[in-house]
């Protein structure tokens, strides 16, 4: 008996010791341990499209410019820049080095951009270069890559000729796809480029020293980074890769990771454990996109108007999603976008439909007349996440109870949903759009007739014209006026049904300071984080 007690005591001590020692942060060595939601699918900056790759790349690489913690532009590899309607010239700092000690030159940027534009690369983000002269033709295979309007005047001067005046061009260059790639290294790796930790060259604040696929990765401070004195963290250990929010909250509670996002269920646990909960608006807008193809009933304006008049985004946010942080969806332009002087949405308030079942019924009657009788069941395409299906069911109930419209919910995986969206196999689809750069155009051209992400093929020449004006002008007032009118047109046409602006809540270890949440760029950004005692 005594022996058992002794063993048990030993076990107990070990157990308690283990929990006491486990900490996701280390002040002495300035390291933190975090989890990411999935294995980064693509670490080649020319091809990466997803958020996780963007998050990891954002710590490892640096573009010409970067955003500071308040979302303002600050110099990156470029020390300074000049901008006119026709041209942007970047002066690169001489002390910017690759992780192997060689300098980062203007040629590395030109090579990266050309690579991303080559049709053979098939980068999904190639369109982001289109403000640069000849970029679109190169991407279409009509011109060779060396005709790109980006030229290295010398090792440290990069001159970019623009296709058209682009007010937000400088902001674009902070984006992943604009990160430099060194030609000799890229060619020496061939297909293996960015496949493993040592198949990449780094010029950012951190370098990746270890990448166990689907298990963990490790980033340590880059000794060659030009601004290394400003970096406090010595290492970021990504020890866990899991998308399961409950598992991540358990890891956080057990002191294994320093940060995790919460969802509608896990936040209640976090609350009862008295964790400090923080909130962040991701900047993404979620909306129901209608199919405007003529053969679909949703191409009928009155039907869309009817739905617009019974949908209450406030109820959606407060009663259905019921997670703090989400904002009412009132427009496809989220509240954080800057306008002329203030926020765009404060200068150009979004028009709102007044909730009224009676008005909706009138629209519906008109729609029935125009469509010649009863409206067939509508197919609502949603992705297979719990939140998305819940929203789908809410919409289904809303349209049945208030309008008597039959809705069928088509639940599909993310990829399958995208495929169906592209082929137009839906009446309505629960869609979302996240910003790529800090300018209104990242949302502005979404519904333009030429934009392939306009999956419902909405087409209004008046809207297209306004987008053209905003794209080609550099005068803030002209641009914002155009976008203000565009916002009105989208409302009048009920082109989409904005539902909510996504907000998230999360917990962060109290000893970690300086973690930046970003609407645009790597999020969360640990670059300037530090561990306090």
């Amino acid at each position: 008996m005594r022996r058992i007690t002794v063993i048990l005591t030993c076990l107990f001590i070990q157990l308690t010791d283990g929990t006491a020692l486990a900490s996701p942060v280390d002040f002495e060595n300035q390291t933190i341990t975090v989890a990411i939601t999935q294995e980064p699918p693509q670490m080649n900056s020319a091809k990466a499209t997803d958020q996780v790759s963007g998050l990891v790349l954002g710590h490892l690489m640096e573009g010409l410019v970067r955003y500071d913690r308040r979302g303002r532009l600050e110099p990156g590899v470029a020390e300074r820049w000049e901008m006119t309607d026709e041209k942007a010239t970047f002066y690169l700092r001489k002390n910017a080095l690759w992780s192997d000690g060689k300098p980062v030159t203007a040629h590395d940027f030109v090579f990266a951009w050309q690579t991303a534009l080559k049709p053979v690369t098939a980068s999904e983000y190639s369109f982001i270069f289109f403000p640069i002269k000849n970029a679109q033709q190169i991407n279409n295979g009509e011109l060779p890559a060396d005709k790109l309007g980006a030229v290295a005047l010398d090792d440290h001067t990069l001159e970019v000729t623009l296709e058209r005046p682009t007010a937000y061009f400088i902001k674009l260059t902070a984006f992943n796809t604009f990160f430099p790639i060194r030609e000799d290294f890229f060619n020496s790796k061939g297909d293996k480029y960015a496949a493993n930790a040592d198949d990449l060259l780094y010029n950012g604040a951190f370098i990746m020293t270890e990448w166990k696929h689907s298990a963990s990765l490790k980033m340590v401070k880059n000794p060659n980074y030009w601004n290394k004195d400003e970096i406090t963290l010595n290492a970021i250990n990504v020890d866990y890769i899991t998308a399961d929010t409950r598992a991540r909250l358990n890891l956080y509670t057990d002191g294994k990771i320093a940060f995790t996002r919460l969802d509608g269920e896990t936040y209640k646990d976090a609350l009862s454990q008295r964790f400090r909960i923080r909130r962040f608006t991701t900047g993404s807008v979620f909306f129901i996109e209608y199919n405007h193809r003529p053969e679909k009933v949703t191409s009928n304006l009155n039907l869309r108007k009817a739905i617009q008049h019974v949908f209450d985004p406030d109820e959606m946010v407060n009663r259905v999603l019921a997670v703090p942080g989400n904002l009412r969806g009132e427009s496809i332009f989220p509240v954080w976008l800057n306008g002329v002087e203030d926020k765009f949405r404060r200068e150009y308030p979004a028009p709102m439909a007044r909730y009224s079942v009676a008005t909706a019924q009138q629209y519906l009657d008109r729609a029935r007349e125009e469509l010649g009788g009863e409206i067939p069941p509508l197919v609502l395409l949603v992705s297979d996440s719990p939140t998305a299906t819940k929203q789908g069911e809410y919409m289904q109930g809303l349209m049945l109870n208030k309008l008597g419209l039959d809705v069928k919910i088509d639940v599909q995986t993310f990829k399958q949903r995208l495929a169906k969206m592209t082929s137009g196999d839906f009446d309505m689809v629960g869609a979302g759009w996240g910003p790529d750069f800090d300018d209104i155009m990242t949302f502005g051209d979404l519904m333009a007739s030429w934009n392939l992400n306009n999956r419902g093929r909405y087409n209004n020449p008046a809207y297209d014209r306004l987008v053209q004006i905003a794209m080609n002008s550099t005068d803030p007032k002209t641009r914002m006026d155009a976008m203000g009118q565009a916002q009105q047109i989208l409302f009048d046409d009920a082109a989409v049904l904005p539902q909510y602006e996504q907000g998230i809540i999360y917990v962060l270890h109290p000893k970690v300071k300086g973690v930046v949440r970003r609407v645009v760029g790597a999020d969360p950004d640990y670059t300037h984080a530090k561990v306090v005692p």
Partner: protein
Amino acid sequence: MSLFQPDANMFERLETQDSAEIIARPSLSYWQDAWVRLKKNTRAIISLNIIILLAIFTLIGPLLWQVDPALQDLNQVSQPPAMPKSALVVDPFRGWEGITIDNYEPPADYADSVPAPTNVRAEGTATTQAVRIAWDQVPGADGYNVYRNVREPTSFADLGLPLGATYGDELSYEDRLSLEARDYYYSIVPTDGLDEYEVFTQLVVTPKLAITRDEALERGLIDSLDAVNIGDEVTIEFHPLGTDYLGRDMLARLMEGARVSLFIGIVAPLLYVLVGIIYGGFAGYIGGRFDVLLMRFADFVVALPFLLFMILFKIAFGIGPGESGIIPMLIALVLLMWPATARLVRGQVLQIREEGYIEAARLLGAKNHYLIMRHIIPNTMGVILVTLTFAVPAAIFTEAFLSFIGMGVAPPTPSWGSMCNEGVKTMLSHPHELFFPALFISITVLAFNLLGDGLTEALDSKMRSRD
């Protein structure tokens, strides 16, 4: 000597007797006997009663509890079972303009520290429609964060849910986030537009349960808008078993779900047991090479994966997105689940076929169909009934499982399985959403299993009672 000549008078007529004295127990048919023995099995009888109650619940229940199972009541989301409640009637919700400062000048620089907000107050009557919080401007601050907690905060790190943030010129916040009639601790924290200053002021608010007059009319709680005045109370919809995550009535959904679950649970086994009887009967009765052939085919069917076929049927039947997968599920069950019954019946038939009385009947000239109808089928009935009672819970379980993984019913039609699937997501915070459908599945499956056990014993002819 003459022979004795009896005289008729010597004899006395006996009275006619219907029958001689009988020493025998009452004659019971096989079924009567089985029923007698089943009645002695308490568990089986309780189970049988439960099954009858379930049938009443499914068939008559919806007539008594006429609530639309698909009707959403977003005033009462995820409510646990409770007594009827009354709510305050309020004006239709209008977004609050809030309190803003005109000619607001943001602070020139980020202050190192600022005082805590003062005069934090609730504007108007706090109801579950909206709680409106306002405060006075804090010099040096360029924004405010609003927190809400369900218990008193112990420290700055324990303010609870971050509801939202305001700009520096906005001195109010309207909270509408799934409010319930309970105490809420609101905290206002000044910020410099991004970072928080570590000071806060707290306010306790207890919103009243409220419903707008228009909604009360829309939901049929009042007859006309004039029927009640603002400030009156109305009794809101009663949900005896609570509501789910979209405020739909759990009881109505359980009844509706029972239809799907019991339909699959009873129709599918009936069909596939019938297929199994015919198939196994043929194989067993004819025997020989034919039997071998049929049984190898049955083995082949056993090896087919059910889920794969379920998916294939769904596609083959052109079941579009958002349509119910119940019919393909039924077909897949019937096509793939019969071999077990077929084997059992075949074994039984093989055995009975060799019995003496069959031989005797055959010698007396009985034809095949007479033998099958008169002797073989009745003698296999026991096995068949038992298989059936065990097949029912298996089918209910299969439906529950398939609906759980999203292969079964299409929303908004509930089934017990799909309700479990939805309930499991909120298991910790709203356990009733998982508990009730899970309870119904468990009880049904258990009842059918226990009844099956009872029937096995009751129908076993070797156990025929001797008393």
